[in-house]
């Protein structure tokens, strides 16, 4: 029993560390990608190729003066970034980071908890994230912050519907809400039979989910809550020091988590092609699978940045039009088509 707790504790600490590290280096990557896309070189002063830049930024954030506005609601002002950070990190619990690792005959699953309702849990936790933005924006007592907060909540609520419906088609196919079982459903090359990644069966669902994930993470082209050209800084206008850092950090952790969810649901998670045909041992497959998973996550994090430095921001009415009148009908149509195909091919 104690060994179980130790193994879970180690796993929690490692996953926590990886998420924070990934968020830190996402800021670096973001600046590098932005620079490269604009034919610049980006941060290159702190350490070789500027790889110590996140550390320098972190120290700067901690050293900055902490300002809480006179008219702000002090408690909620502090609670806001805490909630944003907490909900961002909580979603990492159910992600299957790897398969089974067998040490001394004891199998260790590289996943903190395998809920049978893991997908619902992710949705629930991610939708709580809007409270961090709402509370922070409202507590600032500033019109720009409030605008940002209202935009964020309206946007998240609208896009969560389309996201939820787009996922229903996937659940109909796999018949489970457990993320681990969804990953196993996509295992490639098992004993001669081929299971393709879900993106092959659900291209439209993937596209809808991807667009909604962009909106949920408040990333360009849906970054209206913090649109600096219109709202100064949106919901974090009044924030300074590490509380601002927490908001920015939460955004990058959200990106990381949503990349992980996208790769889990649609791109096979820890599976990679020919994984069972190479004749490797169980542990080697697990380690390679985790590596493949992180490569997929890395690609989607890069994709987020790639899109950010390519597309301009939507106007607010365009955003609402896209959410309610394009994505939701498409998602419903996707559910209907999936059901029809499943009945016709006897896969019910």
């Amino acid at each position: 029993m104690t060994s179980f707790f130790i193994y879970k504790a180690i796993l929690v600490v490692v996953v926590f560390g990886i998420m924070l590290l990934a968020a830190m280096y996402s800021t670096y990557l973001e600046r590098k990608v932005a620079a490269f896309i604009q034919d610049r070189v980006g941060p290159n002063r702190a350490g070789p190729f500027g790889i110590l830049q996140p550390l320098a930024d972190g120290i700067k954030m901690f050293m900055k003066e902490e300002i809480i506005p006179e008219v702000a609601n002090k408690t909620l002002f502090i609670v806001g970034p805490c909630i944003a950070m907490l909900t961002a990190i909580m979603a990492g619990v159910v992600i299957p980071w790897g398969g089974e690792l067998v040490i001394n005959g004891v199998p260790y699953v590289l996943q903190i908890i395998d809920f049978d309702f893991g997908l619902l849990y992710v949705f629930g936790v991610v939708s709580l994230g809007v409270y961090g933005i709402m509370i922070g924006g409202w507590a600032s007592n500033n019109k720009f912050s409030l605008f940002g907060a209202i935009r964020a909540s309206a946007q998240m609520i609208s896009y969560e519907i389309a996201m939820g419906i787009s996922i229903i088609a996937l659940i109909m196919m796999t018949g489970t809400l457990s993320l681990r079982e969804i990953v196993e459903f996509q295992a490639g090359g098992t004993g001669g039979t081929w299971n393709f990644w879900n993106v092959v069966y659900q291209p439209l669902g993937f596209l809808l989910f991807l667009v909604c994930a962009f909106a949920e993470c408040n990333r360009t082209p849906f970054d209206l809550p913090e649109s600096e050209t219109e709202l100064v800084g949106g919901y974090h206008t009044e924030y300074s020091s590490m509380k601002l850092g927490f908001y920015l950090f939460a955004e990058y952790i959200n990106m990381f988590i949503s990349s992980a969810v996208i790769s889990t649901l649609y791109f096979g998670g820890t599976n990679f092609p020919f994984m069972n045909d190479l004749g490797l041992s169980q542990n080697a497959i697990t380690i390679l699978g985790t590596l493949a998973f992180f490569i997929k996550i890395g690609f989607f994090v890069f994709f987020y940045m790639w899109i950010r430095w390519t597309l301009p921001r939507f106007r607010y009415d365009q955003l609402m039009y896209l959410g309610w009148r394009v994505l939701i009908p498409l998602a419903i149509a996707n559910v209907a088509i999936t059901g029809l195909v499943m009945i016709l091919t006897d896969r019910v």
Partner: protein
Amino acid sequence: MKSLTGKAKVLDNPKMTFLERIYLPAIIGGITITLRHLFKRKTTIRYPEQKRTFSPVWRGMHVLKRDDNGAERCTACGLCAVACPAEAITMTAAERKPGEEKLYREEKYAATYEINMLRCIFCGLCEEACPKEAIFLTDRLVSTDYARDGFIYGKDKLVEPVDNRVDVSKRQSPKVLEFKKIKHLRHNR
């Protein structure tokens, strides 16, 4: 209707086609463009390590030249200060004492010589006005400072060190020197 200049463009706002309305082709077009830029050669010049070469006619920070023996050429005639359109140059003259022949070429020299680099427009008229070939604009940069006082350059910064001569031949090429010798040109008088 034709406009008078013929430059007017008729704008209309046509309904977007289906392909335009689903955004995806345009987005794919956009991300391929940014992807191409990702691998392009960067135009950045990494400044302290890498320096851009100046144009040969670049006019930067001034230098007060010494002659071949190491004596200052400037005689504090004040022509540069008169020529200066920005009134950036001030100086006080002093008489050379016996025994100072090694330091100053002529009997009169500039005891102080100051250029306010915030006023200076780097036009090079001081250089043209100088009859003693004493002041030149070089390809060195005037560095930044936190206070305005720091931009008033005295003789300590302007006069070239004896052992570390400043090269002014880039702009004073043989062609230019030849041109300067043509004394009947008003420009060179």
